[in-house]
């Protein structure tokens, strides 16, 4: 109670005499101690593996050419990542990508895509070849894990020369998160 009173005075004085207040408070302290608080993050007993988000848009741009064959480098809007949540570090996973119908559409028709690659994988491929993200190793394979998009390119053809300036081709890449191994 006395200490509380001193502190209260000190606080009131503080508004006018700053150092005086500190001295008064220090006089009431008779010892210090510290308690270390540890929070340990360990693997969960559950095995939650979630594909949280993927890039919203891959953009490409080209002028027409008379060969009808196009190979283009693309951009990833806002540098968005493939984001996976994993609560178990020894749980291996991959993310595979697949372009719907392996083609793009425009008002003038459908255009076959031969490659749509990034991160060493191909959205036209199957099996291991269409893997575009893989788990890191060790403790980094836990929590929220982001994978950048690199080396984005596409090859498609317009054999009949039906594309016109101003056309826009669109398509959708679908992703699948695969739980490769779960040793627990």
């Amino acid at each position, binding site marked *: 109670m006395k200490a509380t009173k001193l502190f209260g005075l000190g606080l009131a004085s503080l508004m006018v005499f700053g150092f005086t207040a500190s001295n008064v408070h220090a006089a009431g302290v008779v010892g210090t101690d510290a308690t270390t608080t540890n929070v340990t993050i360990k693997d969960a007993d559950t095995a939650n593996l979630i594909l949280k988000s993927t890039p919203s848009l891959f953009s490409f741009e080209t002028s027409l050419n008379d060969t009808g064959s196009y190979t283009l480098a693309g951009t990833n809007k806002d540098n968005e990542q493939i984001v996976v949540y994993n609560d178990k570090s020894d749980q291996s996973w991959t993310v595979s990508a697949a372009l719907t119908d392996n083609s793009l559409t425009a008002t003038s028709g459908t255009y076959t895509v031969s490659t749509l690659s990034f991160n060493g994988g191909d959205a036209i491929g199957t099996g291991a070849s269409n893997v575009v993200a893989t788990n890191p190793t060790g403790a980094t394979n836990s929590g929220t894990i982001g994978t950048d998009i690199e080396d984005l390119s596409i090859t498609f053809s317009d054999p009949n020369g039906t594309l016109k300036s101003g056309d826009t081709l669109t398509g959708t*890449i679908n992703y699948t998160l695969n739980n490769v191994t779960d040793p627990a």
Partner: protein
Amino acid sequence: MKVPKYLLLLTLMLLCQTSQPVAAASNSTSVKIAITPQPLEITSTTVPKFSGRIHTDQTQTLVSRQPLTIKVNDQRTRQTNPWMLRYQISAFKNGTHSLGNEVHLKIGPGLLTTSAPADYQAQSLNLLPGQTQELVQAQTQPDTSEYQVAADAITLEIPANAQAGQYQALQTITLLDVPNV
């Protein structure tokens, strides 16, 4: 020994955990390819046409019956480099027979038509087969331009003793983006 059903079920569940797709909250990316206009291109051309009676004992000059017309679409909006047209004519051939390298194609200066005033320098050409010369250089606003040389300003000189027949040559027009220096 009879294996309990729950053990079989557990074993089956563990086996199924290898390479299995799992739930995904967000799982697609849109792909978009924009086909943009060619910033600088030739959209159409015509070719001179000649006809006449070949005299075998003297050089003859034929006048074209058709103008040379070249349309250029310039949609370069970020810079103002001039553009240039170059012209080349190949040897005139009738099957495997050629009129040789003494054929002179002469093209007079033409007129450039645009919607806005444009600076251009039109050249007179005197070409032998295989030669390339500058036809016109222009600095235009983003627009479609038409460069035309009148038919009577295009002539072809045929050497003496040429063999009569139907001859063809290949006209090659090259459009260049000329950097400002």
